[in-house]
């Protein structure tokens, strides 16, 4: 393959300032300087300066490639940085005699370096989790927007609400479940005698600010309609994460009864919340 970067999406490598001819000349000078150094000539800094020039001239290639990996959840600047490491390696190893264009030679090296970065970051482990978190956020947003709009929301509306791309949302819905994951109810060890948390406790809320405060205030008002016993059950169950069986023991009633009371209390709350 003898690529030419004339495609519109490609880096503007062959503008007047830095065309292929100049790149070849620069590499010729660079390899000349390297040979001189290896021969034992005094280092007047030429080699380093030429190397620097070559790096600068090809930074747009690194950027062009890094952008293609930017949707994987790592900062673009970091990708450009590791890509530049790849560029440096390619510059040092490039051999004009081989007759390939430098961009052809450097691209796999730069891509390889970026991919290595993802592997080192344990990225493959984080992605399914990110998708599953998005999957939860999507489910929550669907509920919220359905209530707000009085109809089922579109993916475009979801994407605006969550600040995620439409593709990500569709994928979170389709594939979020398919990946082999830890259950969100898996208990994460608590410290000392503190109770264990589940993974779900660590999942971010999509709009933790005002809306939640508002919900909370409404919920507190709604609590007024509950009986004392209902309040105790909900408090123990949802604030203290006490099991129904344990609550039943404390209140000296059957677990079935606790379940029914909890159900009824939640229904009351739902009614009051929907009236607002």
């Amino acid at each position, binding site marked *: 393959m003898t690529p030419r970067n004339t495609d519109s999406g490609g880096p503007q490598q062959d503008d007047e300032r830095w065309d292929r001819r100049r790149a070849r000349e620069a590499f010729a000078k660079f390899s000349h300087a390297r040979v001189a150094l290896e021969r034992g000539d005094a280092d007047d800094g030429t080699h380093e300066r030429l190397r620097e020039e070559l790096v600068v001239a090809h930074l747009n290639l690194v950027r062009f490639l890094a952008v293609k990996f930017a949707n994987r959840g790592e900062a673009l600047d970091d990708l450009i940085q590791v890509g530049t490491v790849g560029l440096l390696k390619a510059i040092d190893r490039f051999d004009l005699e081989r007759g390939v264009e430098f961009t052809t030679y450097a691209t*796999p090296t730069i891509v390889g370096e970026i991919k290595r970065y993802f592997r080192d970051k344990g990225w493959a482990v984080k*992605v399914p989790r990110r998708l599953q978190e998005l999957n939860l956020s999507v489910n929550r947003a669907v509920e919220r927007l359905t209530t707000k709009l009085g109809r089922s929301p579109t993916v475009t509306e979801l994407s605006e609400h969550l600040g995620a791309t439409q593709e990500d949302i569709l994928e979170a819905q389709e594939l979020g479940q398919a990946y082999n994951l830890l259950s969100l109810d898996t208990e994460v060890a608590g410290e000392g005698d503190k109770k264990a948390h589940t993974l779900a406790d660590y999942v971010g809320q999509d709009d933790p600010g005002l809306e939640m405060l508002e919900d909370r205030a409404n919920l507190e008002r709604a609590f007024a309609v509950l009986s004392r016993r209902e309040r105790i059950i909900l408090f123990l169950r949802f604030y203290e994460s006490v099991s129904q069986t344990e609550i039943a023991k404390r209140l000296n009633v059957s677990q079935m009864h606790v379940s029914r009371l909890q159900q009824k209390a939640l229904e009351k709350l739902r009614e009051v919340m929907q009236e607002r």
Partner: protein
Amino acid sequence: MADATRDVVELQIPAKAEWVAVARLAVAAVANRLDFSVEDIEDIRLALAEACTSVIRHAGEGDPIRIRCEAGPDELSVTVGGGSSVRLQGDVRSEDGLGLIIIQSLMDTIEYRAEPSGIVLQMAKRVEKR
């Protein structure tokens, strides 16, 4: 290449950039049915986008892009072709240089050829044994 052990999924999209996301999703879903890692799926998705971009560059207004996935037990092969009104001039390969090299760095194999019906880009990736 009819092979009983390979399931075939075909998709045709308009040769317009805004449809590429649909193809990316579909092919990612196919790849997910094989035992690919998330990283591999993401690579396949990027390779597919590059392939579609290549074809779009050669396609005329209203041309379709045909995408054919063949899912074997341990390999996914994706063929992207299109541009019924493609006018091929000179060396088609040179036009798509970087995109093809990117695909090459992501997939195990890649073939690129010009046919009377348009350009055809065939790429494949094997599932790594874990």
